[in-house]
C-alpha cells in the first residue's frame, strides 16, 4: 500500500522528494524554498524503504570556501543529513545554513564567502556544453554545405538565429550589430535553454536565482557603459535643452536610470521564472498538502485533488514553456536596446 502511494505521488511532473514522515505536520513553504534555492547537492530522487527510511540518490558537490583566515578551502561534507553536515561545518569553523550554504559563525568576525560550484553552476555548465555541442554541430554543417538549404536541427535553429540577427540586433544596433551578435546569441540561447532545463524534472531552475540573473544583467550593464558614446555621458551629466537648475536635478535621476535598467532586467527574469515555478510547485504541492497537511495521512483527499491539480499544472506548464522563450527574448532584446541607446550619437 505504501509503495502504491509513493508511486502515485511521484507521478507528478516535478519531482518532489520529501522526508517529512517523521515530522509532525507538513511544512510546504520549507519544501517550496528548498526547490527554488540553489543547493550543494544534486538530489535526484529518494527510494523509500518504509518506516520513514529512504535511500537518497544525489550527487554531492564539493565545497569551495574563501575565508579571511584560511584563504581558499576545498572540502566535502560527508554527513548523511543536514544535522551531521552542520556539525562537520561547525568543526571547520563555519555555520551551515538551512539550505546548505557555508556562512560565518554568528559570533565570528572573519569574512566567509561560499564559492562552491553548486547545482546551479553545474547545470549552467551543462547548458553551456549543450549549446557548444549543438551550435558547433550546426556550424560544421554550414561549413560543409555552404550553399544548400538548412537541414535537420540546422533548419530549426536558423530561423531563430536570423530572428535574433534581424529583429533584435540589427534594428537597435545598426551597423554595429555584427559585433554584438555573438553575445546576443549566446545570451538569448543561454537563457532560453536554462529556462527550459529548469522546467524538466531533476533539474534546477537556473534563471530563478537572482544571483544568476544579476550576473547576466551586470554584463549587460558593463557592455552598455563600455560602449557609451560621448552623447550618452553628456546626457547623463549635463542634460541638454533644459534650464541650468534642471540640469542639476537631472544628474541623480539619470545616474539612477543607469542602474535601474539592469536591475529591472535581473529582477524581471528572476521573478518570472520563480513565479512560474512557484505556481507549478504550488499546484503539485496541493496533493501533498491534502495528503499530509493536517498531520494525518489523508490518501483519499490527495487522490481527489489530483485531477484538478494535474490539469492546472499542465496549463501553467504550457504557459511556462512560452514564458521561457519570451523572457529570453526580452532579456536579449533589452540588452540590445540599452547598448544601442548608449551608442547612439545625437544630433542637436
Amino acid at each position, binding site marked *: 500500500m505504501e509503495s502504491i502511494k509513493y508511486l502515485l505521488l511521484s507521478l507528478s511532473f516535478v519531482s518532489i522528494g520529501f522526508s517529512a514522515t517523521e515530522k509532525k505536520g507538513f511544512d510546504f513553504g520549507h519544501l517550496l524554498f528548498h526547490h527554488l*534555492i540553489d543547493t550543494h547537492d544534486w538530489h535526484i530522487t529518494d527510494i523509500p524503504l518504509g518506516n520513514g527510511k529512504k535511500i537518497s540518490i544525489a550527487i554531492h558537490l564539493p565545497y569551495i570556501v574563501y575565508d579571511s583566515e584560511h584563504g581558499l578551502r576545498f572540502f566535502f561534507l560527508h554527513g548523511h543529513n543536514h544535522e551531521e553536515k552542520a556539525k562537520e561545518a561547525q568543526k571547520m569553523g563555519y555555520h551551515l545554513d538551512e539550505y546548505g550554504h557555508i556562512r560565518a559563525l554568528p559570533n565570528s568576525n572573519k569574512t566567509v564567502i561560499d564559492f562552491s560550484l553548486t547545482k546551479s553552476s553545474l547545470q549552467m555548465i551543462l547548458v553551456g556544453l549543450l*549549446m557548444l555541442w549543438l551550435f558547433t554541430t550546426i556550424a560544421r554543417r554550414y561549413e560543409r554545405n555552404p550553399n544548400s538549404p538548412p537541414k535537420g536541427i540546422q533548419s530549426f535553429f536558423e530561423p531563430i*538565429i536570423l530572428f535574433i540577427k534581424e529583429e533584435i540586433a540589427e534594428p537597435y544596433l545598426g551597423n554595429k550589430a555584427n559585433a554584438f551578435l555573438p553575445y546576443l546569441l*549566446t545570451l538569448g540561447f543561454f537563457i532560453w535553454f536554462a529556462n527550459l532545463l529548469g522546467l524538466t524534472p531533476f533539474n534546477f531552475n537556473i534563471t530563478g536565482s537572482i544571483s544568476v540573473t544579476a550576473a547576466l544583467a551586470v*554584463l549587460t550593464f558593463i557592455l552598455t557603459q563600455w560602449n557609451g558614446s560621448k552623447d550618452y555621458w553628456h546626457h547623463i551629466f549635463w542634460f541638454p535643452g533644459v534650464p541650468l537648475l534642471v540640469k542639476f536635478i537631472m544628474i541623480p535621476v539619470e545616474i539612477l536610470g543607469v542602474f535601474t535598467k539592469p536591475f529591472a532586467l535581473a529582477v524581471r527574469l528572476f521573478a518570472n521564472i520563480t513565479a512560474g515555478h512557484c505556481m507549478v510547485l504550488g499546484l503539485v504541492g496541493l496533493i501533498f498538502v491534502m495528503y499530509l497537511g493536517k498531520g494525518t495521512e489523508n490518501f483519499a483527499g490527495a487522490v481527489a485533488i489530483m485531477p484538478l491539480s494535474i490539469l492546472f499544472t499542465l496549463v501553467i506548464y504550457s504557459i511556462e514553456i512560452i514564458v521561457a522563450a519570451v523572457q529570453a527574448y526580452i532579456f536579449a532584446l533589452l540588452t540590445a536596446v540599452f547598448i544601442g541607446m548608449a551608442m547612439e550619437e545625437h544630433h542637436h
Partner: protein
Amino acid sequence: MLLKPELGLFFWTTVIFLTFFFLLAKFAWRPILNALQKREENIANALKAAEDAKAEAQRLKQENEQLLQQARKERERILKEAQEAKKQILQQAKEEAQKEAQQIRQQALQEIEAQKNAAIAQLHNEAAQLALAIAEKLIQQRLQDDKEQQALAQRLLAQLKQNPN
C-alpha cells in the same frame, strides 16, 4: 532568502557564461554568421547573375530580331532588284530581238529589192529578147508590107523611148 544574491553563484555565473560565450563566439557563431552572410551574398549574386542573363538574352533576342528584319529587308531588296533586272533583261532582249528582226527584215527587203531588180532586169532582158524574137518573127512575117513595117518600127521605137528598160 530567495532574493539574497550569492556572491559564489554570481561569480560562477559570470565565469561560466563568459567562458561559453568566448567558446561559442569562436567555434559556433562566427562560422554560422559568416556562412549565413556568404550564403546571402551568394543568393544575391545568383539573383543578379540571373537578372543579367535575362537581360543578355533579351538583348540577344532583340539583336536576332533586328538581324532577321534586316535579312528580310535584304531579301526583299534583292528580289526587287532581280525582278527589275529580269524586266530590264527582257526589255533589252525584246529590243534587241526587235532590232535584229528589223535588221533581218531590212536585209530581206533589200534582198527582195535586189532580187526584184535582178528579176526585173532579167525580165527586161528576156522581154527584150522575146521582143527581139517576136520582132524578128514579125519582121520575117511582115517584111513584105513595108508600110506596116514602118509603123511597127515606129511604135517600138516610141515604146523603147518611153520605157528604156
